Structure formats: structure tokens, C-alpha cells
């Protein structure tokens, strides 16, 4: 009892409502930094998902709604392989390989027959794939969902600044995603395959005319996109649970990102992802308090989650109204050409 009271006194000094301006300001600053990190982490995770999507969209002109299913499969594979091998990293690597393979098989068996078809055919076909994957997962793994426990060394919070503790695992996500982003950048900007990818994004017919084996390139790009989605899924799995349909909500966010960033642009996807991640988190973090100053507490509590979820879509709508081709369109020429001939 005595201890808890003294604890309480100690804490109330730190809390926001005591007349201690310096402490107050410091706590608030720390909170802003922490929320910024939360947003950054979320954004980087979204980037992994969006990168694959924007590549597939930009190069093969394929709208792949089943991208979220690959994210889900990555998580399921990871939970299964980690449980089998008993080793988190080994399981993660196996899961990555499995998603890559799945992506290649998927491209080879069905999706390659959709290239060059209408976007709406893509929507219908890949919507069918979503149904199929969700149901197949339910049949194989059951409806209950799986847990992917972290190894002990990743579960501890780390003091990144005095007074700011941040979950080690979320830090790990930030690091891994930044490394992947860097590798992608180097891969696309500095290698021969990367050059072909860029060429494909800006003019598809041309690289075919150059005698490049487009089919192989497409399969490769799709596999890479699948692996990136799988990586996002397996990294998200320990934070969320592994469950059916986990890909669908996040898929829409990924689409929002590639549209804001400009289709086909890795750089655009990167910047837009971080932007969306931070907007979303900051909105959830600070909008309720802002609203509470304007509305009654009860009304603010109900309206805040709705408003903060709306924020991203509002941003997308504004971006599209002002810049109808996204912020960093990779293939300006291509789009302009399509605008003239395209059927819609």
C-alpha cells in the first residue's frame, strides 16, 4: 500500500496534468518522438508491401489484389517454419524462400496469362485468388490463427534515448526495412537487371523489341514482389497474430501508397509509405486530444478513431486532385501515351 502510494506520487510528477512545466514539456516531447518512431516503423513495413506491388503494377501493368494474400502466406509460412526449426531466423529465411517460390508458381500458372488484359479482368481474377487463398489457409491451418513468438533477445525494450524505451523488435523492423530499401535502390539503379526493370517500367514494348527475354524478367520481378510481401508478412506476424484475411486491410493501404507515390516508382513508394505511416500514427496519437478541446469527451472519443482513419484517404484524394498521376510518377511518357489510347 505504502509502496503503491509512493509510486503514484513519483508518477504523477511525470504526468501531464501536474504544474511542472519542464517535466511536462519533456514528457510531451518524448511522446512525440516515440509516436514518430511508431509511424516510421509502420511506414517502412508498408513500404515492403508497396514496393512489390508498385513493381508488378509498373512493369507488368498487372493489378494484383492477391498481393495481400502473399503477405498472409509469408506470415503463415514463417509461423510454421519457425515452429518446425525452433529457430526464428532460419524459419524466416525458409519462409522467404517459400513465398518467393509461391510467387513464381503463381505467376507461371495463372497470372502471366493476364498480362495485356484489361485491368478489370485483373481485379476479378485476383479477387478470385484472394477467396481461394483465404479458404485454402483455413483448410490447411484451421481458422484459429497462429502465433509467431519472438526469440528472447528481440522482446526486450531498448533505451534509444534517455527516457525513451522502444521495443527491440520494432527497431529491428526499421533496420531490416531500411536495408531492404537500400538494396532495392542499388539493385534497380546499379545493376543490369535493375536497368531492364526501369526500362520495363517506362516502356514495356521497347525492351521486348530489344530482344530481352521478357517472360523471364516478368517472372523474376513477380517473385521478387512476392518475397517482399512475404517479408512484410513475416515481420508483422509477431506483432499481430497470423490470421486469415490479414492481407486485405493492409493491401488497400499499399495501394494508397503506390498511388500517392506514383505507380512504378520505388522512390515514390518509399517516401509515400513513410508519409502514410507517420500521418496514420500521428493522427491516432494526437487527434483525440485535439478533438477533445473542441467537442465533448464522449463525442470526441467516438469521432477520433473514425477521423484518424479517414486522414490517409483524405491525403490521397488531395494528392490525386492536385497531381492526378501521383507525386513521383516513374513513367510519365507511358502514362501520357496510355491516356490517349487507353479504353478508359
Amino acid at each position, binding site marked *: *500500500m505504502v509502496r*503503491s*502510494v509512493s*509510486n*503514484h506520487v513519483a*508518477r*504523477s510528477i*511525470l*504526468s*501531464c*496534468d501536474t504544474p511542472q512545466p519542464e517535466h511536462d514539456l519533456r*514528457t*510531451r516531447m*518524448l*511522446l512525440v518522438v*516515440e*509516436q514518430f518512431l*511508431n509511424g516510421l*516503423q*509502420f511506414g517502412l513495413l508498408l513500404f515492403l508491401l508497396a514496393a512489390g506491388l508498385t513493381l508488378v503494377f509498373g512493369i507488368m501493368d498487372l493489378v494484383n489484389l492477391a498481393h495481400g494474400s502473399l503477405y498472409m502466406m509469408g506470415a503463415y509460412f514463417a509461423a510454421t517454419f519457425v515452429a518446425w526449426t525452433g529457430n526464428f531466423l532460419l524459419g524466416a529465411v525458409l519462409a522467404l524462400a517459400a513465398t518467393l517460390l509461391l510467387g513464381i508458381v503463381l505467376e507461371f500458372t495463372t497470372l502471366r496469362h493476364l498480362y495485356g488484359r484489361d485491368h478489370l479482368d485483373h481485379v476479378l481474377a485476383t479477387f478470385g485468388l484472394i477467396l481461394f487463398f483465404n479458404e485454402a489457409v*483455413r483448410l490447411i491451418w484451421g*481458422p*484459429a*490463427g*497462429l*502465433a509467431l*513468438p*519472438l526469440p528472447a533477445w528481440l*522482446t*526486450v*525494450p531498448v533505451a534509444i534515448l534517455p527516457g525513451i*524505451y522502444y*521495443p*527491440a*523488435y*520494432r527497431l529491428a523492423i526499421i533496420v531490416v526495412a531500411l536495408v531492404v530499401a537500400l538494396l532495392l535502390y542499388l539493385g534497380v539503379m546499379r545493376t543490369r537487371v535493375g536497368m531492364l526493370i526501369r526500362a520495363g517500367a517506362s516502356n514495356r514494348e521497347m525492351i521486348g523489341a530489344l530482344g530481352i527475354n521478357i517472360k523471364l524478367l516478368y517472372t523474376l520481378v513477380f517473385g521478387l514482389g512476392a518475397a517482399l510481401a512475404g517479408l512484410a508478412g513475416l515481420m508483422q506476424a*509477431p*506483432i*499481430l*497474430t497470423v*490470421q*486469415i*484475411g*490479414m492481407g486485405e*486491410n493492409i493491401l488497400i493501404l499499399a495501394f494508397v501508397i503506390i498511388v500517392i507515390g506514383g505507380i512504378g516508382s520505388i522512390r515514390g513508394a518509399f517516401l509515400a509509405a513513410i508519409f502514410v505511416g507517420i500521418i496514420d*500514427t500521428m493522427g*491516432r*496519437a494526437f487527434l*483525440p486530444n485535439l478533438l477533445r478541446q473542441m467537442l465533448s*469527451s464522449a463525442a470526441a*472519443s*467516438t469521432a*477520433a*478513431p*473514425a477521423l484518424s*482513419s479517414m486522414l490517409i484517404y483524405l491525403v490521397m484524394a488531395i494528392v490525386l486532385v492536385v497531381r492526378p498521376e501521383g507525386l513521383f510518377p516513374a513513367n510519365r511518357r507511358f502514362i501520357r501515351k496510355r491516356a490517349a489510347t487507353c479504353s478508359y
Partner: protein
Amino acid sequence: MRTAFWLAGATALALAGPAYAGETIKIGFVSTFSGPTAVIGNDMRNSFELALDHLGRKMGGKPVEVIYEDDGQKPDVGKQKTEKLVQSDHVDFIAGYIWSNVLLASLKSAVDSQTFLISANAGPSQLAGELCSPYVFSTSWQNDQTPQAMGLYMNQKGVKSVFLIGPNYAAGKDMLAGVKSTFKGKVVGEEYTVWPSQLDFSAELSKARASGAESVFVFYPGAAGVQFLNQYTQAGLKQQIPLYTAFTIDELSLPLQKENALGVPGAQEWVNDLPNEQNKRFVADYRKKYPNLRPTFYGAQSYDAAQLINSAVVAVGGDTSKKDAMKAAMEKVNFESVRGSFKYGNNHIPIQNFYLQDVVKDADGQLSLKTVATIIKDSQDSFHDKCPMK
């Protein structure tokens, strides 16, 4: 145009079917059997089936037929399934309902057709108050009751301040209101998250930490509860700020929450180790019939729902047209509940005990839920005054 005429013809045929009065007792059961929360629905179905086994699959001498319908955790689908059970299957009873919003959407169809509805889980405040009905009974609780018990326990522990987090839907709002109504300390913050799509709670957790609250209370049923506890532990908050819960840790989520749930208290009206005979039989036979599973409070409430229906059918000797007599029989609670005895208030919501449950390691090193204490005896919901039934 031809299609439209075909449609019209098909419906005309359907209309011609005679009203059906059968020699079986027909029960509809609406719950979630698809999607991530299907595990809850499965547990309810398992328990309901077990109760029927225990009753010899007969009620009042007549064979029982159960029609299970999946609401997909969507209010409009649940409403549609309820309508189908009432209009097309002509069931005598409808039971089930996990989600408050699904129940609220479905209520009108059942009540309008004077079909008895037994809520085996959902307990929105409206159901206890202005929307109470002679045809609606609950074998669970009113949403506020369980967190009210938790608030009382936090008072007993001398907790001075709390940060509340819950999902933004009917039950979430009821739950946080419940804690606030009994907790005597200060509520330093209150956060609602988007339900069911928001699964990352980092922003809310950072705010809870910064608020300097002495404790955190949460309500997250199903998979969201697993995610919340994962993230609470990963953020290092579990060592820093004690967590209090309602409906966040149960036998379904525990295998996924694992050590993260150890030592986190919850309030509940039923725990698997309650020492009455009916409960021992329920738990033992459940584990025998479904070897890898353990029953949950959702299951216990569904088991009781079957027993409650049986008590009504037996009282009228199987003649389910005697609705008044069945209502009177159910109001008496003339069966052995697995939670021990309870009574019905004027609004058909149980007046019952609430227990403190804790997560412990049992003899074989398995995590399990255990009753620690009785928090409150004969708790009645605080909305019964608003119910016009006396």
C-alpha cells in the same frame, strides 16, 4: 427481362409453401463460423452439441434439430441469417450471438416474430434496458457487469489511476463505461481503436506510458487480445504498468498469448475450475469429446443456453406453442448452471457472481486459468430500471 420474370416466378412458388409445424424442437444458432473469430463460434457450437448429448438429444420427449448459421461477424449478415431462421425454418428458439452489434441488428426480427432469443454472449446495454423483451433471455451478462467487477477489484488493490483502451463498438464502449462506473481512482486517459480492423496499438501504448497512469485496463476479445498482449509485453509495459482486463484472456487466446498472459488478472462469471458438479461434468466431458480443446466461458454460456431451452420445453411437455408458460419456466432458472446458481432480473439478464481469474502454470507446466477469489456476489446490471418489464 426473362431473368426478372423467372425471379418473380420462383418467389411465388416459395410463397405457396405451407406453414410448417413439426414434431421436432427446432433451434437456430447464430454465431461466427468463418474468419479469424470462428474459433469462438466453434467453441460455442461444441458446447451446445455437448449439452444436447447430455440431454440425450431430446427435449420434452421430442428430438432436437439445430440449424447453425454463420454471421461472419457482420451485423447485416447476422440479421439476414436470423430472418432466415425465423421466416424459413420456423425455429422455436434462436440462440448464440457473440457480438453486441450483430445481436442489436438481429433483435427486431426475432422479437417481431415472437421467437425466443437466448443470447449466449452478447450483452449490450440496450438489451438490458429499453430494448428488453419477454422473448429475450441472456445466459451471459450485460456488458458493463464484468468490467464493473474489475473496477471493484482494482479498488480493493488500492489502484489510484487507470488508462483505458478498448475497441470502438457497442461492447467496447459498454466495457469502458463499466470500469468507470465502479473504479474510484482517476481515469487519466481513454482510447478507442477502430474495430475490428486496427491491430497495431503502438500509438495507444505510447500514450498509456506517457500518461503516467498507475494501471491499464483493456477489453479486446479474440485475436485482438493476443495482439494487444504481445505488443504490451514487447513495449516493456508489462513490467512497468500492471494490466487489468475483461474478456481479453480466455482458453482460446491463451495458447497464443502464452507467457505474455501470465499474472494478468481478468474478471469472469465462469472459470473452468468452478467447483460445482455440473461444471466438472461439462469440463471433463468437453475435453473427452474434443481432445485438443478446452472449453471457454463462451462455451459455458452456450451450454447453459441449451439447458435453459430444455427447461422451457420440458415445462410445457414439448408443446412449444405455449409461449407464456415457456417464458415463466425460463424466468425460474430451473436448471443447474455450470457457473453455479443464478437468478434472472426483471430484464432477463442474470443476477450472478463474478470471479477473479488469473493465469497460472498448472501441474504439467501448461498455462491455465484459475479462480482466485469472488469479487462480487449477486451482481445485477445497472440498466434494469430502464426495462419496462416488471
